C-alpha cells in the first residue's frame, strides 16, 4: 500500500486552494450520498445491536437469522458497499484525470500499486466492514467450539465490535473532511453520537478481569468525553457541543423506546414469551448512554473561555477533558439510580468512578486536541488557516 503523506493544515492549504474545490450542489451530490449511506449503515448497526441486546435480555432464543442480527449485518454491509462504491468512483475519477478533492473522504490512498485510489475515510469505513465480514466467519468458528453464548465479551464478538467501531470512525473522518460544508457539519453532529453510543461496548473485552471499576463505565466516561470534545473541536463553532449532545439525546430517547418495543413485538410475532422474572430495568444500551446536555454546556463554556481569552487551546484541552470526565463520572451513577430501581452505588464506588473520570478525562482531552488536528489535516480548509 502506498500512501500520500498526511501533512499539517498549513502545508496543504495552498494546494487545496488550487484544487478543484467543488461547493456547488450538483458536484457534491455524490459525496453527500456516499457519506450519508455510510452513516445510514452505522445507524442501522446501532439499532441492531440495541435491539439484539434487549432481545437476549427479555426473550432469549437465538438463531443466526434473527431480525436484530439482520440489522447488525446489513448495517455493516451497507456501509462497506457504499465505501467500496466511493473508492471505485474515486479510482475512476483519478484515472479520468479529475481526482476527487480531499473534501471527499480525505486524502487519497493509493492501493495495490495505484490500481485503486481510496479516500482515507472511505478506506477506513470499508476496511472496518471487511473486517466485520472476516470476524463474522471467525465468530461462526468460535460458536462451533463454544456454543451460541449470548455474551458480549468473547474474542470474536469484541473483534466484531472493534470492526464496527472502525467503520464508525471512518464515517467521522468522512464528515470531518467535508466540515466546511453544511452537510459535513450535520454529519459530524450525527456520526459522533453513534460512536459515543457504540465505542464503550468494546470495553467489555476487560469484563473478565478483576478491576476496581467496571471497565464499561470507564469506557463510557473516556469515549464520551473524547468524542464530545473532538466533535465540538472539529465543528469549531459555538453550539457544536450542544448540538452533538442534543443529537445523542434524541438517539438515546429513540433507542429507549425502540429496543424493548422491538423485542416485545418481535417475540409476539414469532410466538415466543418474554423471560420469567424480568427486573423492572431500563433498556441496556440506551440507559448506558450518558445524558450529558449539562456536560455539553460546560464544554461550550470552556471553549468560549479559550476563544475569548486567547488561551492556548492545545494546552488547555486536557483540563477541559478532566472537567468533562469528572462531570460525566459524577452524573452517571446518578443517572443510573434515577432510571434503574435495581441500581445502587456505594460512596466508595462513586469516589473511584470520580477519580477515574478525572484521569481518563485528562487523557481524553489530551487526545481530543491531537485528533482534532489530525482530522482537520484530512482536508485542510483554507478558511481555517
Amino acid at each position, binding site marked *: 500500500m502506498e500512501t500520500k503523506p498526511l501533512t499539517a493544515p498549513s502545508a496543504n492549504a495552498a494546494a487545496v486552494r488550487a484544487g478543484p474545490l467543488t461547493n456547488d450542489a450538483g458536484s457534491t451530490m455524490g459525496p453527500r450520498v456516499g457519506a450519508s449511506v455510510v452513516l445510514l449503515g452505522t445507524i442501522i448497526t446501532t439499532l441492531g445491536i440495541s435491539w439484539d441486546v434487549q432481545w437476549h435480555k427479555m426473550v432469549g432464543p437465538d438463531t443466526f437469522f434473527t431480525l436484530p442480527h439482520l440489522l447488525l449485518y446489513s448495517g455493516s454491509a451497507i456501509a462497506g458497499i457504499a465505501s467500496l462504491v466511493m473508492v471505485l468512483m474515486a479510482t475512476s475519477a483519478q484515472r479520468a484525470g479529475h481526482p476527487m478533492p480531499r473534501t471527499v473522504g480525505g486524502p487519497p490512498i493509493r492501493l495495490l500499486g495505484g490500481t485503486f485510489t481510496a479516500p482515507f475515510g472511505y478506506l*477506513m469505513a470499508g476496511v472496518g466492514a471487511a473486517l466485520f465480514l472476516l470476524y463474522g466467519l471467525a465468530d461462526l468458528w468460535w460458536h462451533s467450539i463454544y456454543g451460541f453464548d449470548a455474551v458480549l465479551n468473547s*474474542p470474536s464478538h469484541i473483534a466484531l465490535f472493534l470492526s464496527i467501531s472502525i467503520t464508525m470512525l471512518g464515517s467521522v473522518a468522512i464528515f470531518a473532511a467535508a466540515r466546511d460544508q453544511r452537510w459535513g457539519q450535520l454529519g459530524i453532529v450525527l456520526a459522533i453520537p453513534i460512536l459515543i453510543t457504540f465505542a464503550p461496548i468494546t470495553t467489555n473485552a476487560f469484563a473478565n478481569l478483576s478491576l476496581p471499576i467496571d471497565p464499561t463505565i470507564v469506557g463510557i466516561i473516556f469515549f464520551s468525553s473524547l468524542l464530545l470534545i473532538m466533535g465540538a473541536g472539529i465543528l469549531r463553532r459555538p453550539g457544536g457541543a450542544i448540538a452533538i449532545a442534543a443529537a445523542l439525546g434524541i438517539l438515546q430517547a429513540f433507542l429507549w423506546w425502540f429496543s424493548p418495543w422491538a423485542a416485545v413485538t418481535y417475540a409476539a410475532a414469532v410466538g415466543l*414469551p418474554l423471560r420469567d422474572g424480568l427486573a423492572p430495568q431500563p433498556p441496556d444500551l440506551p440507559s448506558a448512554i450518558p445524558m450529558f446536555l449539562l456536560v455539553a454546556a460546560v464544554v461550550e463554556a470552556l471553549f468560549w473561555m479559550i476563544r475569548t481569552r486567547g488561551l492556548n487551546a492545545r494546552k488547555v484541552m486536557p483540563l477541559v477533558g478532566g472537567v468533562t470526565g469528572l462531570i460525566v463520572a459524577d452524573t452517571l451513577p446518578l443517572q443510573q439510580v434515577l432510571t434503574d430501581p435495581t441500581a445502587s452505588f456505594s460512596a466508595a464506588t462513586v469516589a473511584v468512578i470520580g477519580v477515574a473520570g478525572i484521569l481518563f478525562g485528562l487523557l481524553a482531552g489530551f487526545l481530543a486536541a491531537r485528533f482534532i488536528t489530525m482530522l482537520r489535516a484530512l482536508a485542510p480548509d483554507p478558511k481555517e488557516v
Partner: protein
Amino acid sequence: MNTRIRPPRTRQYHRLAVAALVTAALSLAGAAPAMASAPVKVVHTERVQVGPYGVTVGFSVWPIRAMRSLDFTFLPDGGIVGKSGKLLLNGPGIKPDERVTPLVRHPRKLDSWGLDVKALNAPGAYSFGFAIDGPFGHGDGTLQGVTVLNQPGPPLGSSWTVGSLPFLGLVVVLVVAWRRIRPGRQPLAI
C-alpha cells in the same frame, strides 16, 4: 491489428460500482429472517432430592467444558405448575450476582425451569442448589460435584490476540498519522 474498441477504464469502475450495488440489494432482499430456535436436547440427566420434591437436572452437553455454553433444565416431578423457588449456583466460574437467582422457565423449554445457553467459565467442581416452595411445602437440596473440564479450543491468549488485531491495526494507523502530522506541534484553534 486489434480493431476492438476497448471501453475506457473509468467505465469499468462505474460498472463495478453498479454491480456492487445490485449485489448488495439482492443479497439483503434474499436474507429473509427466520426465527426457528432449536429445541433443547437433553443428553444427560442427574437426580437431586429437594425436600419433598424430586428434581431432574438436564444437560444439553455432557461432559461439560469450561466456557462451552449449554442448556440446563430443572424439572421437578409433576412439573413446575404451582411451584416456585431459587437456584443457588456455586463454583469457580460463578460471579457474585449469579449465585442466587429465581428459578425461571427455560425460554426454549417452557414446561421446565432452566438456564439457556449458559457457560461456566472456569474448570472445577460446581454445585446446583435448589430452594423450592410448592404444594408439599418448602424443600432444599443440592446437586454436588458437577465437574467442569478444561476449556476446548486453542489457548485463550491466542484467541484474544487474533481478536485484538483490529485494535492493533487502528493503533498503527493512528501512530503513522501522528508521526506525519505531529499534532502536538500544530497550533489549535477551536
